[in-house]
């Protein structure tokens, strides 16, 4: 099934659902009672405006779709790699996880061959680890 990103009705439906969700939360917070400092008042306004905008977008009509990707498999594959990285990070230490991500990333994006990918990933991981952990004093994941 093709994703209809530019379909105005689908977008309007999603926005209306979101607006509805915000309104439900506003109602839960008791925002419909108009006390001046009610925590639900701002969510109430936001939800109503989202619903209004959903109506306007439905009338807006479908936009021009984005030109097709140069290589859609490349985009989807890398997106999956991005999604997988936090999972890998939960099992492996950061240097190993990032080196693995880079090797697979370089190979998937056809940037270089096996050997160069391993060497570049090792050097890259070493630079990132040293730079951020010791120079910027950042705690690594």
């Amino acid at each position, binding site marked *: 099934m093709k994703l209809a990103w*530019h379909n105005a009705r689908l977008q309007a439906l999603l926005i209306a659902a979101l607006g509805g969700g915000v309104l439900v939360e506003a109602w839960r917070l008791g925002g419909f009672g108009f006390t001046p400092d009610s925590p639900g008042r701002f*969510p109430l306004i936001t939800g109503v405006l989202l619903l209004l905008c959903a109506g306007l977008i439905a009338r*807006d009509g479908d936009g021009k779709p984005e030109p097709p990707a*140069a290589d859609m498999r490349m*985009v989807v594959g890398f997106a999956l790699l991005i999604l997988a990285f936090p999972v890998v990070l939960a099992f492996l230490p950061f240097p190993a996880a990032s080196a693995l991500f880079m090797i697979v*990333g*370089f190979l998937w994006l056809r*940037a270089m061959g096996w050997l160069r990918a391993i060497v*570049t990933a090792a050097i890259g991981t070493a630079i990132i680890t040293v730079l951020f952990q010791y120079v910027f004093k*950042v705690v690594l994941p």
Partner: protein
Amino acid sequence: METLALVFNPLLIVLTAVGVVGGIFVGAMPGLSVTMATALLISFTYSWSTEAALAMMMGIYFGGVYGGSRSAILFNIPGTPSAIATGLDGYPMALQGKAGRAIGLATLQSVIGGVFGVIVMALMAPVVAEFALKFGPFEYFLLATLGILLVGSIGSSSLPRAVVSALLGITFSMVGMDPITGGARFTYGSSSMLGGIHFIVALIGLFGVTEILFQLRLGSAVPVAQMHDKVFPGWRTLAKHWWLTLRASAIGFIIGALPGLGGDIAALISYDHAKRTVRKPTAPFGQGAEEGVVAPETANNAAIGGALVPMLTLGIPGDAVTAVLIGALYVHGLKPGPMLMIDSPYVFKNILVASVWSNIFLVIFGLMAIPLFVRICQIRRGILLPFIYIISVVGAFSIQNRFSDVVWMTSFGFLGYAMRMGRFPVGPMVLGMILGPLMEASFRRAVLLAEGSLVKLLTSAITDPISAVLLAGVLFTLLSSMDSVRRLTNRIAGLFARSSQPQRIER
């Protein structure tokens, strides 16, 4: 003495220089944006002093805006949106074997524009800040609303889409504890969401991961650079364009100072101005006219000074990068707005000093090492993108040392991609996340001051001149983008045009 120590602080000078080099690199690389670099940097400068963080960020800002011209001239691929206009004549100059001259001209004009912007900012900011002290909570609410609407109406083809994007940002900013009552909102029983979503995590996702996915759509062709000649264009060439330089600087500063308009719009308007007013260009516009490089490059760097004025004095960003800089100030415990100049005058001085050093380093690095930058610009996307993602992960994690932030950052990246595919601009969403708490707090305070009566609130808004002007601005922005109103005004304008034309006598 204190100011002198700040001006010649070796650490700040080095950090500004590093920032400028990094900025030129980021700006020159198509696909890497200055906003992305600044957003990533904020997370790493969390533990730095404010002075050090701001010095590096200003370096990146100036270097990045300038760096975009490099790839526009050499490859006809603008590295940043503000370099789109530069490529129109810069690339034809390069095709004629004058790439060096075009780069030299772009460098020096960027510096002239940048210095102009900094000087005018130094003069204007204290005056605007003093005026802004008269603003009450409702004025702040209106100003923030106007800023978001302006970003939406200019940066997007459809205002409702921009408003949805901003509302999404505002909704995300409400996740966590209510700022006044302390009750949980939008947390759905999860204790990890009580702390809210850090906007820098969202920024890294929206400008880092989204950009990675978008760059992948474009493929990974390596651009071919044009040959370059002598870089320094000569003093006579600079003197020849002084009047256009002055006008472009003024246009850049004014456009930059308007909330929501950035260097890209300033450069395009300035280019158009040059095209319409320069009678005898060095070559026809679009075919390698020097004026086509002078005008946009001067304007986009002058816009930086302009964009800093509303950021420092009102806490309202002039463009996307200043939106991120506001975030940086919040991270360092500072609140941008009129009180910033009074409570923390060193921040203003710091920004001024870093801006001046950035311009000095622009001349040095801009005119040197061109072959090296050409090589850097030719690095394949396939090598760069995995690195950027890993740095984004480190950046998101380092903010609160929470693994859930990495998940949030990735989710925002995918959300940003879906939004861009669906023609929803992400700029208003960022503004919504940053300005959301200010808007809500100001609105609730204003309602409390009006004793809970919305009628009283609106009446006082109409009678107060400042809020009346802001309210008119909000309404005008909303109405001017509505198709029905646009059609009506066009019809009225058409009627006037017809009635003012001389009547033809039928024989």
